[in-house]
């Protein structure tokens, strides 16, 4: 898949290849040492951060981490309809 910055595609491919190998062969086998792709990630980041700037993507907006927050859980109560489990087996 392409990077947002055309110039970053090569660096992205190198990093992604390294990461995917590390993820399958190390992380999923219990290793938590993630140093293998650090240098490639740094080089790729330098390129991608510039590209985000060029595309005027608001970096501030990206910095918030929502996955840990309670914001999502709270919004559940907003307008959640009652759901009835329904058998819609299409297989």
């Amino acid at each position: 898949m392409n990077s947002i910055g055309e110039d970053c595609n090569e660096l992205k491919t190198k990093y992604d290849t390294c990461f995917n190998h590390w993820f399958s062969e190390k992380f999923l086998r219990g290793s938590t040492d993630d140093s293998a792709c650090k240098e490639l990630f740094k080089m790729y980041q330098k390129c991608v951060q510039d590209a985000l700037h060029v595309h005027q993507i608001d970096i501030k907006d990206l910095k918030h981490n929502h996955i840990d927050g309670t914001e999502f859980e709270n919004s559940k109560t907003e307008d959640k309809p009652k759901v009835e489990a329904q058998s819609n087996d299409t297989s």
Partner: protein
Amino acid sequence: MAKYYENSTVFNYNYEQVLQGFWKRYPNPYSTHVLSEDTIQREIRDDGKLYSKRILTKTNRVPKWGERFFKAKFVCIVEESLVDPKAKTLTTHTRNIGFNRIMSVTERVVYQADHHGKTIANRSAWIDSQVFGFATPIRAFGCERFKKNCQKSNLGFNYILGILFPLQNPNSSLHQQDVTQKFKDVAKTAGEHMKEQIYQASHYNVSQN
């Protein structure tokens, strides 16, 4: 009020396979609307979970009536994910950035290993709009588009899993179950809502002139 949508999908691949496929799922024949994908943050946390943040850009196709609100040619999506290797779960949180007042879509998916060597994905989504007078049709449009994109997303993901792990039977690899009848009912009348809102708005403008 935001609209809520949820569904469940069972992938006939084990948890490790689904996780490996997750990072490789673009491009695929069903993802022509996805233009780019970049990782901007990645770390292993003290509790051993892998946190990643990725930025995706997607095309922003809207119907004619919506062009006055959505002038952007593409939208930017932030996808956060957390892999918990002990609990065997992958949780994703996805949101659009920019244009949130016009339409915000927030999605959470939890991929979980089941007891039969398969993986279940439970998806919840909230769609909202703050545009005065048009929030209802925009939310309805957002829900419809979201639902279509969910189907494409599942088909695309499954396509990639089929390539990565070809020994599985592709015909039985996807089983989808919609659990939100309420959403379906709302979606059926979306067109009517839009027509009514547009009629009211144009009628109002005419009477003002």
